[in-house]
């Protein structure tokens, strides 16, 4: 019986992931084989058809089962997010809207060169120059997947080998949504508020861009989301399973990108809280053993590459490549911290919807613009990106409203918190720590590119959750209605945006 339950549980978890994997790889193989390297419009039509069908099915199901309407909506949002991510990945060549990809040659020192070294030579980089300093997990996974997919397609050209690796980013972007759904369940959020939370992340353009790019950003965001999920689970029940899984997540996450280690501060705080409790309950020994196990798993997996580079090349731990100092055209450190981080640069907001890393300096506005459009400009009629920008700005204001509302519960009305205060405090902590660390990083490295939202994609997860929780708390208030209305507008505009980008690709 127990074995059957376990088997069912694993199946329930693994089946969707397997289906997703097949969908991503299958669609990639199909489009590459049938449509070539620039499949733009047909993919968009396919996406539109899929979404319309899903909408119709959801509508019918909800009409026939009104009590399960919220479940249906949740599935629709999840499905939409996945379709958008896969669609974007399919119609965007790897060398379009890329970052630091550089030449698709094995000698190059961008992401493409890193990958090709692994695929062709089966070797890790021979130096830490430029992008070769990056942690290897994404490239290892990318190389593996690329070999399989290109083997099926029968392609050995460098472009195809590199392009295939974006399926890893796409998979990570989709799995982030699954992780977020599990986080909502873990926080015991109502279905409706889970829909709100998921919608914020599902329709976040920056997340699709990361999903269609040869870069570790998407995978890093996934691991941070998993770290969030398993920190919650570990806090609820610090079993050996949860401890080992959490350790693996952090290890693999840091092995993807060092910055995944930043939220470990929160996990460490949770460990500390539990340490005090366990000490009081005189169960310290077992607890310490778990901590040692955690360290023994996460640290070697996470930091082995750093130590390899330290020994081989003298690359210091926490190394970040230089950007050229004050002479760089990207330098924006000549403004005050206040002007960069606190005040909103409305002049910049009303100048153009697109971010300009050479001129912009205000972090909040840059986050907003790059969350929607990255650091790129698009030949899409002005009406759409500007409307999306303003709606997203209003939605961001509602997220701030949600953060303040949750803070009030914690700070001003702590007595109203129940024994499950972790469900209120943790999302808040994850949001604030991640946001503040991002702002601190952007100030420490005052260049336009440091402010790109691709480093902050995970922020969409706690932001959505806080909004969902706040709407749940203030169900009938004007703020909740405005938030829902804005979210609906944002979802529609973001979807149209994704189609538009595909059409012009």
């Amino acid at each position, binding site marked *: 019986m127990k074995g059957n339950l376990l088997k069912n549980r694993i199946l329930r978890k693994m089946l969707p992931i397997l289906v997703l994997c097949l969908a991503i790889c299958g669609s990639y193989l199909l489009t590459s084989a049938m449509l070539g390297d620039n499949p733009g419009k047909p993919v968009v039509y396919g996406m539109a058809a899929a979404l319309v069908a899903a909408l119709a099915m959801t509508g019918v199901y909800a009409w026939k089962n009104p009590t399960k309407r919220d479940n249906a909506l949740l599935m629709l949002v999840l499905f939409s997010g996945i379709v958008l991510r896969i669609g974007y990945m399919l119609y965007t060549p790897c060398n379009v809207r890329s970052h630091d990809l550089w030449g698709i040659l094995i000698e190059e020192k961008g992401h493409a060169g890193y990958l090709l070294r692994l695929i062709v030579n089966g070797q890790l980089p021979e130096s830490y120059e430029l992008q070769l300093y990056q942690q290897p997990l994404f490239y290892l996974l990318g190389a593996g997947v690329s070999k399989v997919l290109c083997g099926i397609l029968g392609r050995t050209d460098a472009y195809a080998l590199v392009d295939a690796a974006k399926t890893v980013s796409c998979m990570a972007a989709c799995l982030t949504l699954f992780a977020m759904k599990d986080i909502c369940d873990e926080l015991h959020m109502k279905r409706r508020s889970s829909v709100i939370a998921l919608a914020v992340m599902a329709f976040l353009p920056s997340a699709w861009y990361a999903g269609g790019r040869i870069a570790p950003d998407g995978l890093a965001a996934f691991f941070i989301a998993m770290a969030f999920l398993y920190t919650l689970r570990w806090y609820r029940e610090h079993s050996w399973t949860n401890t080992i899984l959490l350790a693996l997540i952090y290890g693999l996450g840091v092995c993807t990108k060092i910055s995944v280690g930043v939220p470990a501060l929160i996990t460490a705080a949770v460990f500390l809280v539990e340490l005090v409790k366990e000490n009081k309950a005189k169960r310290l020994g077992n607890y310490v053993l778990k901590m040692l196990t955690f360290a023994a798993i996460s640290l070697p997996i996470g930091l082995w590459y750093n130590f390899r580079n330290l020994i081989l090349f003298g690359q210091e731990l926490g190394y970040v490549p230089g950007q050229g100092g004050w002479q760089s055209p990207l330098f924006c450190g000549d403004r*005050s*911290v206040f*002007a960069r981080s606190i005040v909103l640069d409305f002049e910049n907001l009303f*100048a153009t919807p697109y971010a300009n890393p050479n001129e912009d300096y205000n972090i909040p506005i840059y986050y907003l613009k790059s969350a929607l459009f990255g650091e790129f400009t698009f030949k899409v009629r*002005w009406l759409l990106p*500007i409307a999306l920008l303003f709606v997203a700005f209003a939605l961001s204001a509602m997220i701030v409203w949600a953060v303040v509302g949750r803070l009030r519960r914690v700070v001003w009305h702590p007595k109203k918190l129940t024994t499950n205060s972790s469900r209120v405090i943790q999302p808040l902590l994850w949001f604030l720590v991640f946001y503040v660390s991002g702002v601190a990083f952007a100030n420490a490295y005052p260049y336009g590119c440091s402010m790109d939202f691709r480093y902050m994609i995970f922020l969409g997860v706690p932001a959505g959750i806080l909004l969902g929780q706040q709407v749940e708390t203030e169900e009938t208030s004007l703020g909740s209605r405005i938030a829902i209305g804005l979210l609906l507008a944002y979802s529609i505009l973001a979807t149209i945006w994704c189609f538009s980008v595909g059409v012009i690709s």
Partner: protein
Amino acid sequence: MQTVTIFILSAVFFIVGSWMHLLYRRDGLWSPNALTVWGLFALSRGVVVLISGHKEIAVAAAFLEGLCFLVFWLAGYPRKQPQIHKLVLFLATIQPMFLLSVAAGVDVITFLSLGVEMLFFFALALGIEKLDSRRILRFYPAYFSFVAFGMIWAWSLGPGGDRLGQLFSTTGKPPMLLVLGLLYLVVTVILVIVTHIFHRELNYPKGLYDADVEDLTVEECVDDSFTTETVLETETSEPTENVEVEKATETNKPTRAKFGWKDLAIMLGLTGIFGVLVFFGLGAKFAPETTFKMSQEEKTSRLTIDLGESTELSEIVIFLGGESHRTFSVSVGEKKNNWTVVDKDCVVQSVYTWNHVEFEQTARFIYLVSRNSTCLINEIIILDKDGNVVTPVNAEDFPELFDEQEKYPHDTTYYYRMMFDEVYHGRTGYEFLHGIHAYENTHPPLGKVFISWGIKAFGMTPFGWRFACAICGILMIPYAYMFGWKLSRKTGVATAATLIMCTMFMNYTLSRIATVDIIVALFVLMTFYYMFSFMLDVREKKSFWWQMLHLVLCGFSVGLAMATKWTGVYAAAGICALFFIILIGRLIKEGLTKKNVLWVVKLFFVCVVSFLVIPAIIYVLSYIPFKRCNFPDQTLIQVVLDNAELMLSYHKVTIFEHAYSAEWYEWLIDRMPLLDAITNVGMTKVSSVSTFLNPLLCFGGLVALFHHFYLWFYKKDTEAAYLTMFYLTMLAPWWFIVRTVFIYQYMCSAMALVFMVTYSLTKCKKHANRKLWIFTILSILFFIGFFACINGYPISRSFVNDVSELFESWGFA
């Protein structure tokens, strides 16, 4: 600028009007009374007509609109439902579309929008009366959203320069405002649909459909079960059995506190502290004072300076006397009369300032020729390549030029030289003292007379020319205390107000610059303080002698203010309006009794003396030094009138590019601080003196301003009305002025903000005292944080860049 002004005023008018409307609705009224509605109509249209650059269209349109409203008012059916009528007129008055179309200045659009406006509001009135009014009145949120759409599109398609075609373009300027406006239109449509579908009923308190009701008050519409008694509970040691309940009614007012020794001590103490801060690093007590005159007529326009031997030079530093912008021809040679011209148009700009001229030459002789008919030089410093002073061997031939070499400071911060407009006012003070033809004639002379007294006492040195302004700035502090005390009758509140005044930033900087702005600010503060005292005298029914005293002092202050700067005229207009409001208010309240008539007659004579005779005498007498210097042969009255004409024409046309100029609406958000002086000190430090407002006061003051609108219009708070009038009368004239302006011209209005913030915080329902002191402490912390930027004390440049320059437009280093 005029278009922007009209847009901003229209938006503020609409927002405040809508807010008032919502407040009225909440308490059962639907609009202000008829007099207020017509008054708002006249005021708003009048202001726009005056500001507009298209006067003919504006006048014609405003006249037509007024006519339409009058016809509407006099027409038959409003008599049955006056509340609806007033409501519709109020909505028509506050909506900004007509005002904006006037600003656009296009005939067709203006009259078209007038036509649309009339149709819309007639339809609304008919609709409310004839149809189910619940349906129509339900659409208020959509109405406001629609007006927002209209305003944004009016700006975008007008001054913004956007075109509708840009919405569907992929290149060129992004039409940001067009899209924003479109989003508001979408929101309007959604609100109409949603409201229609969900049938939200509005609460209808009595009054809207009552035919017999003309003007309701709040009390008539409020629920009768609510009493106006306030109940205070005091806890004792046995709360369950011995709770005493005290009832305080409106008749039992607490006795008025008196200004005591404690208040005097605090007032003087704060004045002393502020004084110390003002005098800290005010200016050097030395500067070259002996003058050498180079004159073509007297054949002293050429100088040959002999250094004794060939020397590698780096700079020549020239401390000019009382004539600015002098041009020299500079030559060098190893032998006399064997010159090589280095620069034939070397311009030296500023008076009483160390002007550095780069001079990387090796020579024994320097030949200077003045290209102007006269040139006054107080000192010349010659520096070698290492920065050491080289004294010429023939220095004795030109004693005035080389006799004060030890006064050269090596760093030329504000401390040792003139900054900003000191070059005009400080210089003119010197000219008044010595009977020299006065250079500066664009402001009345009294302020410069005061400056000349400081120069007389301490010499033509930075300390000397700034002394008078420092004293005036310090004298503002006791007035701030007294004003704060009169507002609240509480020592704590007065202390807080004074501390906020001390940490205002702008008054501190202006106290340390020899310009007339702080002098006029002092007199304006005195003016409004004395008028406020008069208002309290009337309210508290004090004896006529007290009223007379305060009026005379007010008149005296107004005279001093007007004789310093014509900004004093705005204060005069403001107190005139306030005076009549106080007068009419008392007559309405008490009626035209014999006692009151007598009182008015006595007041008339006092006012004639106080506000006509005394100011006229002060104004005319202030011109004596100016006449003596510039027009000794003319009569005093003629000099006054001629100068008035000159000043009027000057201020009408003075428009020039300046890096630190700021329009009036930019003052409200502290957008452009004025950098009075900046000097690099070493490699890493900077000394800068800037004029701007404490950002806490600036933004807190805006919030307080809106709160004061609420207190004035809704709560009928007299003090709030007074302070708002103080603020607006000093600000409003700048809406009409087209010349180049700067943030320091906001000083007089900003003083009102100090009291508005204080008063607003005292009106908080919960923890008023705590909030007031938190604000005060924060203000002090801001003052400390920005002290170096307003004082000129050398500070790390990276600190200024990273921390002090809060906004992109702020530049202190």
